[in-house]
């Protein structure tokens, strides 16, 4: 038995660590193998970005379609909110009257909205004394727009003649507000850490979806592709050995920023609006490249890491000014600040970014 173990040992030691000369043709074969593999379709970074963009656009259009199909329903809801005891000036009542009539005549169409409509009916009854005062002007009707409304299924045939002109406009305004909008943004920013050596400008591109909860408050989310270039330095953590002496890290990171923000409209006048927003961002680090200069001889080391994620690890703050170009498109400028709540990337850098977004805001098409 001992002899057998000696045999194992003989081979284990004798076959260990032999210097086989490098045979270049083997690498040529290997290279070929790698080439063949590379030709196979893969899903690189770029594809995932495109997929994300396509998905957001798809979601946007799905929402847009449903909002169009639900016109009548959402309008009924809208009416509900309008019939509040607080709104009492006479012209508002005129408006209500118009709306309520509409709702009433549409009752058979919106069969599944019984409850809402019943409540609307009772609201009408309550408004009866006021309604009697309302003068309906049947002249000068804009037949084109009414015809359009009719084809949209918004205006029943019974109402097609004899509707007052001044109310027409209001009626149109009361149709579903554009709750959804799509924002395309590009933003230069400066990413820095607490011990930055110099500041470099990085770029961001993104696609955001905004949903208005009320007239003033909205939520937005999306995907922003960001390239963050930053550096930071420090002094050695020990007095001797490798980690002594100053060090510097130059970082070049590609990040997918997924923000969830709440927006509040502070001010709106004509085509100009000002809003503030705050929220949290999750960073998906696609690729982190670090160049570490350290050690007694200022050795430069390159390092690359992928796959770090920081879920809700960054706080966002921004103030935006928006200007309407037409009913659908508005342009905006939005200075922003991103403050980390956790360390970002492999070296847990205290990475914050400040910049200004240039944004194109596209509203959904539902008010045609």
């Amino acid at each position, binding site marked *: 038995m001992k002899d057998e173990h000696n045999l194992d040992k003989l*081979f284990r030691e*004798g076959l260990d660590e032999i210097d086989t000369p490098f045979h270049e043709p083997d690498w040529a074969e*290997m290279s070929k193998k790698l080439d063949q593999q590379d030709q196979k379709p893969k899903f690189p970074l770029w594809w995932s970005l495109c997929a994300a963009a396509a998905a957001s656009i798809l979601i946007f259009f799905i929402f847009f379609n449903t909002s169009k199909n639900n016109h009548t329903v959402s309008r009924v809801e809208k009416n509900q909110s309008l019939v509040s005891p607080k709104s009492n000036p006479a012209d508002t009542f005129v408006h209500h009257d118009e709306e309520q009539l509409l709702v009433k005549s549409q009752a058979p169409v919106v069969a599944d909205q019984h409850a809402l409509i019943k409540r609307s009916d009772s609201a009408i009854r309550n408004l009866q004394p006021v309604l009697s005062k309302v003068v309906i002007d049947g002249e000068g009707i804009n037949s084109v727009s009414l015809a359009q409304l009719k084809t949209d299924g918004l205006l029943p045939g019974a109402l097609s003649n004899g509707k007052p002109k001044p109310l027409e406009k209001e009626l149109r305004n009361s149709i579903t507000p554009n709750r959804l909008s799509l924002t395309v943004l590009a933003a230069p920013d400066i990413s820095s850490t607490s011990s930055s050596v110099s500041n470099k400008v990085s770029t961001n591109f993104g696609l955001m979806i905004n949903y208005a909860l009320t007239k003033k408050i909205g939520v937005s989310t999306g995907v922003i592709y960001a390239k963050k270039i930053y550096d930071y330095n420090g002094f050695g953590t020990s007095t001797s*050995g490798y980690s002594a002496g100053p060090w510097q890290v130059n970082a070049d990171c590609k990040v997918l920023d997924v923000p969830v923000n709440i927006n509040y409209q502070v001010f709106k006048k004509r085509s100009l609006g000002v809003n503030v927003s705050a929220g949290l961002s999750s960073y998906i680090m696609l690729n982190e490249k670090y160049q570490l200069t350290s050690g007694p001889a200022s050795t430069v080391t390159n390092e690359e890491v992928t796959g770090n994620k920081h879920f809700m690890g960054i706080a966002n703050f921004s103030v935006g000014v928006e200007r309407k170009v037409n009913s659908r498109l508005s342009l905006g400028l939005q200075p922003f600040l991103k403050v980390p709540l956790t360390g970002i990337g492999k070296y847990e850098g205290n990475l914050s970014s400040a910049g200004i977004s240039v944004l194109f805001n596209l509203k959904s098409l539902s008010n045609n």
Partner: protein
Amino acid sequence: MATFCVLASYTVYKEDQNNSIDLLVKEIISGCIRKDRASQHLLYKEFYSYCMGICKRYSIGDFEAADVLNNGFLKIFNNIDKYDNAKPIKAWIGKIMVNTAIDHYRANLRFTTYDDISEYEQNGTEAIVYEQMAYKELLMLVQSLSPGYRIVFNMYAIDGYTHEEIAKSLNISVGTSKSNLFKARQRLQEMIRDMEPLNAKMKVISNHEQNISKNERRA
């Protein structure tokens, strides 16, 4: 507590010593993660000899070894992002190579009909350089084993697998693994005994060289 401190400072010392090599390898690895072909070439070159050493003893000759080697490196390059850089890269690469060799054995098992004796003679025709004789001979002996014996002997005697692990990865019984190991050792001993007279002369002239000299005489 004192022991801990000593251990800790020893680790730091060791780290300092290995840092320059580690940093170079780390740089190469990060290049490989980027799928940078030049870095892949460097890694390939760096570990070629070590991996070839593993592949050769698991296979029948250089061609098969090179085939296994490249399949192993393909796995290495495709999974290098999963490599935990706290552990030594060499051990990680070695493990992948051995696994690739085992996979190769399993994949080719049903097609192979090796004849021990003819293989032995075939390998014997290779030129033997005196300085590398010990290695060459040992390798030749291992390569001349039948595939079933060779893989068990490699895994157990050289790579330190247990019979249970061997049985599991080759899908054989523990008994078969033990019996293959026993027979492999028996076979190797026989072959070493046969070679003794040659070794005693301290110089081995291969058949190949003999042939050349014969040809020269004829000419």
